[in-house]
């Protein structure tokens, strides 16, 4: 959960832009006034290269957090428009209202029908206010569940896109059962008798993300994040200092490569140099290809097999120790004799 939906500003990006402007200014000066500024320019170019490396070659977890929240990052509706045809949007939870923070639709991939849903973040302030920055109310989760049950009934696979700071932390959300709605979705997704494919494209914010993210295959974009708590929230609670968010981002192991290693994510989808927003045209085919591969695999499996595999997967996540045996083991291991 995040209190303030972040308007992603990349500090390093801004620094890099400033350095590049300065290089340009010095070059103009040198050209127009015949000054020799080669040393100054060379120093700045070194600085620019170091920044480029920090941003693109080996970004820190905190920098990845900022990439995941980047305002220009491709959004759910971009993926829907690029990947699916014949899209028919579905609305409402039939109980309270239609939550614009959650999207649900019927669509086709390569002509094959499926249900697509996910958090609906906006591109600008106006869209984000209308869609509550992609933070659903309980009715959003219930709308998603309705779409998933529809998919189950008609044997359609579910493709869920995850991009949210978290479930909306408001009084009305609590009163309408935010926790119950999330819990219900999680349970139902563990036993939905149809293939469920999850793509984490931006922010995977805690329970509010997991409520549409329990699946047979979980794919994650290279610079997306998935975490139990925002780095800012973690730093505030543990160290009473929200400014230590970068440290928390490191400690939480929230990047795609960390989560692949921990077995939480099944596949990492590499992003274009500098992030998906730099070249959206390059990320859509990657996601499309991955969806094709995983859907083909999952379509070949019976509902019973899917449910067994899904149960075993989540059952096995975690690291425990039996102090009596003094050894570490994965969660699924039965230590009883």
């Amino acid at each position: 959960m995040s209190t303030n939906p972040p308007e992603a500003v990349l500090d390093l990006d801004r620094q890099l832009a400033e350095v590049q402007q300065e290089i340009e200014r010095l070059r103009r000066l040198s050209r127009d006034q015949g000054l020799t500024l080669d040393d100054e320019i060379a120093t700045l170019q070194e600085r620019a290269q170091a920044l480029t490396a920090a941003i693109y070659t080996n970004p820190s977890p905190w920098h990845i957090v900022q990439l995941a929240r980047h305002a220009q990052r491709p959004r759910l509706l971009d993926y829907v428009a690029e990947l699916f045809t014949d899209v028919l949007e579905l609305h409402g939870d039939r109980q309270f209202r239609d939550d614009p923070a959650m999207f649900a639709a019927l669509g086709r991939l390569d002509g094959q029908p499926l249900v697509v849903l996910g958090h609906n973040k906006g591109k600008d302030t106006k869209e984000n206010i209308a869609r509550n920055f992609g933070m659903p109310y309980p009715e959003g989760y219930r709308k998603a569940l309705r779409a998933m049950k529809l998919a189950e009934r008609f044997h359609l696979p579910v493709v869920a896109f995850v991009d949210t700071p978290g479930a909306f932390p408001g009084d009305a959300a609590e009163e309408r059962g935010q926790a119950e709605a999330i819990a219900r979705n999680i349970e139902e997704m563990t036993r939905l008798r149809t293939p469920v494919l999850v793509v984490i494209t931006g922010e995977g914010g805690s329970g509010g993300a997991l409520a549409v993210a329990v699946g047979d295959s979980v794919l994650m974009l290279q610079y997306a994040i998935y975490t139990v708590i925002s780095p800012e929230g973690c730093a505030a609670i543990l160290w009473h200092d929200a400014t230590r968010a970068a440290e928390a981002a490191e400690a939480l192991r929230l990047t795609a490569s960390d989560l692949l290693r921990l077995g939480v994510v099944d596949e990492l989808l590499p992003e274009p140099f500098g992030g998906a927003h730099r070249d959206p045209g390059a990320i859509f085919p990657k996601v499309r290809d991955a969806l094709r591969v995983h859907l083909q695999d999952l379509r070949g499996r019976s509902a019973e097999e899917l449910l067994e595999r899904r149960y075993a997967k989540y059952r096995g996540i975690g690291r425990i120790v039996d102090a009596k045996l003094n050894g570490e083991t994965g969660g699924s291991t039965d230590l009883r004799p």
Partner: protein
Amino acid sequence: MLNWLRRPKYGTLQRREMPAGIWAKCPRCTNLIYRKELDRNLRVCPKCGYHHRLSAEERLAVTLDEDSFVEFDAGLTSADPLAFTGYAQKLEEAREKTGRAEAVLWGEGLIGGWRTVAAALDFYFMGGSMGSAVGEMVARAAEHAHAQRLPLVIFSASGGARMQEGVLSLMQLAKTSAAVGRLHDAGLPYLSIMCDPTTGGVTASFAFLGDVVLAEPGALIGFAGRRVIEQTIRKKLPDDFQTAEFCLQKGLIDMVVPRGEMRQTLAALLAYFGAPRVEPPAEPAPEPGTARDAEPATTPAPERPWGSAITSAPRGV
């Protein structure tokens, strides 16, 4: 072996809520209460009805039938999978403080003569937070209930997911929900009792998935924290926001049950859902309708001390 493991587990019950002494001060009404009277009243303030928090052991002791409980997995604990700053030390401190290996206690026992799998989260162990081991044990409790065709009763008291295990803690929401989902599919009853406080990831998983959801009076129950909500909506929340009574009024839970009536209420629910009955039970079998007369839990006989529901040594499993 670590020091905390050698300690006798159930020899004495530690009182962590209040400083030692003959008199205790109620944090709500500030009245001074004779400690023995408070204990006799199951740590419910006789003046104002405030329900003091209980440890997991105390919770099972006041709810389950005498000498009926056998604990499983007593030594199971979370690893430090992310090597998270300060986590190993916090775990060690929690073990020192509670004499327990983890924030949950589970096993088999009787409630009013009904055989059941029971689990209790311990708020005194790192705020009852759910990491790998808590998730594992809740899942094992559900799987054990499934395998033995027994009902499952879980008492929650938790601040939510344990952030020191990162997304692995978040995944415990899926693990525990999947496990209780199998009980739902199998037609086995699962009763969830929310005690003070039950918040965050525990509410967003197994705690709200009970076939019947109960709460203790005054318990704090909610997903997001009060301060976060107040900052988000930029207004002050009413005092009773996210209390058990508030949740009842909003239709989120089935009933608010005082501590003294919890055993009889659970027994009555288990009777409705067809739990296996143990005959003869460890104590006079209370019929649901006459349970309160048969055994006035609010004033147990002095010769029945706290903790007697738990056998003297945990069974190594």
